[in-house]
């Protein structure tokens, strides 16, 4: 029942947002829905129900390992959203609030989906729901970003649909009845022999290539990452945080579920190699672009590409690696939340995002600048924040798997990303404020509503790193158990 509530509550609140008559109070629907969502997903984390066989969706171990994070992310962002929409009263917020709530419902559905077709429908609908969020600001640049997002994201989604069909056809070729649930597919492929295996194998490989390209586009793995800088640069901070922490996580879950099926068909070496190649390439591309981009919101997008690469590398390294990747999903998403929200504050105080025009933010917006710098150290894996521990575990997994080159390349990319990120962040924070920024900064007030949410994210990041709750470690172990065990 609670599983359904995770999907239905946000959708009900979304419908309510559409008919809500008052522009000013509508934004309070966000924390209301977010609070209920957090409560029910934490309830399910503690008292997780057994998955009914044949269910289309359910709170299985993998959903249990990531969905509470998405709830938490949304809830904290929704508190920020109330303060944000209060200072942005010149824009109508009906569509924005509606789309945010529907996005939450669809993410909950996609993460819980136990069926390849249902996963695709939810992922595609989530992609479409993001579009009104991106062009909330209504500028020409925002429409350009929406257009690129639609074309690239749409193509990616089309490829994943083709991949889903290929996997379904592989199952038909293996004598299946066309049941597209992950459990049935994996169970069917694992026992294949003779003619059935010969006839389905080419389709399994085609499916993996297409599905990885498709859901990899949603995740933002290089070279399919090109929509990310545009979108994260133009969208409001909360949308960036939800995309970088929520939508990408959903796509990562999709990749893990598909990988489980393809692994069952005996292709685990292929899936690991491709994931490793995409992961390291993403980290490299992100590190190089981080060294050159002049825009501090686009910087966050490249940082997100880098961390998607880290997740892919983790997923390629077997059991311990997947555990570390799930850990990293939490630490990265929560830390990114702090960075996006504080970057949004700085953007509003400065009036622009280009490093050549922004400096001295430590004077104009002192609290946000402090949060931004702390977030920088957290995301570049400085202790005591979460990303340090999760990335350390991935390096350990690489050494355990005797992948010394991988570990070296991984650490090298992290180092370059660190250079790129610190260069930009300190250019923004240090120095003397520009004259124009002094007037915009006077209008910007650092209220509790825009400071406490990023602070909460940083607190969560440090807490999960220093004292990982046993409940969460158990949830991640159970998810790894599900993903690596042969059905």
């Amino acid at each position, binding site marked *: 029942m609670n599983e359904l509530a995770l999907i239905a509550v946000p959708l009900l609140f979304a419908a309510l947002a559409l008919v809500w008559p008052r522009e000013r109070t509508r934004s309070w629907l966000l924390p209301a829905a977010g609070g209920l969502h957090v409560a029910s997903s934490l309830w399910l984390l503690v008292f997780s129900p057994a998955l009914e066989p044949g269910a289309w969706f359910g709170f299985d171990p993998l959903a249990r390992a990531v969905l509470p994070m998405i709830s938490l992310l949304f809830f904290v962002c929704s508190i920020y959203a109330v303060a944000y929409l209060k200072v942005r009263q010149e824009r109508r917020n009906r569509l924005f609030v509606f789309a945010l709530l529907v996005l939450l419902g669809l993410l909950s559905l996609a993460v819980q989906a136990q069926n390849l077709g249902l996963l*695709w429908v939810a992922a595609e609908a989530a992609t479409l729901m993001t579009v009104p969020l991106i062009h909330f600001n209504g500028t020409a640049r925002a429409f350009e970003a929406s257009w690129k997002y639609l074309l690239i994201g749409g193509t990616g989604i089309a490829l994943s649909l083709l991949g889903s069909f290929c996997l379904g056809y592989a199952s038909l070729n293996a004598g299946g009845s066309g049941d597209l649930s992950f459990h049935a597919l994996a169970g069917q492929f694992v026992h294949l022999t003779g003619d059935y295996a010969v006839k389905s194998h080419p389709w399994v490989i085609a499916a993996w290539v297409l599905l990885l390209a498709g859901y990899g586009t949603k995740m933002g793995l290089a070279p399919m990452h090109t929509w990310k800088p545009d979108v994260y640069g133009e969208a409001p901070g909360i949308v960036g945080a939800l995309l970088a922490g929520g939508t990408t996580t959903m796509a990562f879950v999709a990749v893990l579920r598909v990988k489980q099926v393809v692994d069952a068909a005996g292709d685990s070496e292929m899936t690991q190699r491709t994931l490793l190649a995409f992961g390291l390439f993403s980290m490299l591309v992100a590190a190089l672009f981080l060294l050159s981009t002049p825009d501090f919101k686009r910087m966050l997008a490249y940082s997100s590409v880098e961390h998607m690469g880290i997740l892919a590398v983790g997923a390629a390294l077997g059991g311990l690696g997947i555990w570390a990747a799930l850990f990293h999903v939490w630490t990265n998403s929560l830390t990114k939340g702090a960075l996006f929200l504080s970057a949004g504050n700085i953007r509003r105080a400065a009036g622009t995002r280009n490093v050549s025009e922004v400096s001295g933010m430590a004077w104009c917006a002192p609290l946000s600048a402090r949060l931004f710098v702390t977030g920088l150290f957290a995301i570049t894996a400085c202790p005591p924040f979460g990303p340090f521990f999760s990335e350390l575990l991935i390096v350990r997994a690489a050494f355990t798997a005797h992948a010394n080159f991988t570990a070296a390349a991984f650490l090298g990319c992290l180092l370059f990303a660190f250079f790129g990120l610190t260069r930009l962040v300190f250019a923004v924070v240090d120095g003397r404020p520009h004259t124009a920024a002094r007037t915009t900064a006077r209008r910007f007030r650092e209220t509790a509503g825009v400071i406490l949410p990023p602070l909460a994210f940083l607190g969560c990041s440090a807490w999960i790193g220093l004292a990982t709750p046993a409940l969460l470690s158990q949830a991640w172990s159970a998810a790894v158990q599900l993903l690596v065990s042969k059905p």
Partner: protein
Amino acid sequence: MTNTLNLFIGLAMGLNLLALASSRLPSVIRAAALQGMVLGILPLLLEHEFQWLVGVVAVGTIAVKGFVIPHLLRRALRAANIDREVKPLIGFVPSLLLGAAATIGAVALGGVLPLLAGQAGSLLVPGSFATVVGGFLMLMGRAKAISQVCGYLILENGIYLFGLLLINSTPLLVEAGILLDLTVAVFVIGIIMDRIQKEFDSLDTNKLTTLRE
């Protein structure tokens, strides 16, 4: 049965090339619409006995792909007051040649991949791959937003063709969801196109160059 089916699929493959070779936007839209209608008929040919759900999907596909979407695109065309693709990134002759090469490649590839017993000899797989590549070529090679949308439609048509391989076995619920998502996708694309037209006073995506490194 297979012969009629292959005739229709061959027609869809020909329409790909027509769309790739044409510089006039109305004829590109017409080719994509006609292709969508041809594909809408196919599920009826594949079924041995009439099922009402398949009928609904077929009628829905023909209505959406053949009439609703082309109508929206033509309206956008009139609003933007454009008629032809002027400076494509990939020229018309090269894209036609690439499309033809992709068609040959798809037929060759389709011969290698194993098919189910009942579907041997059908052009579904080659037709699907050729259409997907044709759609990609249009998506990448054209500068006008409307041509890119047509490319996306052709890409979707290719995937739809592949989906027909599974029509007997997957629940139609999924197919209905897919159709719904596609419709909404095109509506959203249409709205954004409208805003771009108003904001930039053009539907030329070459003007969308503010965002880059």
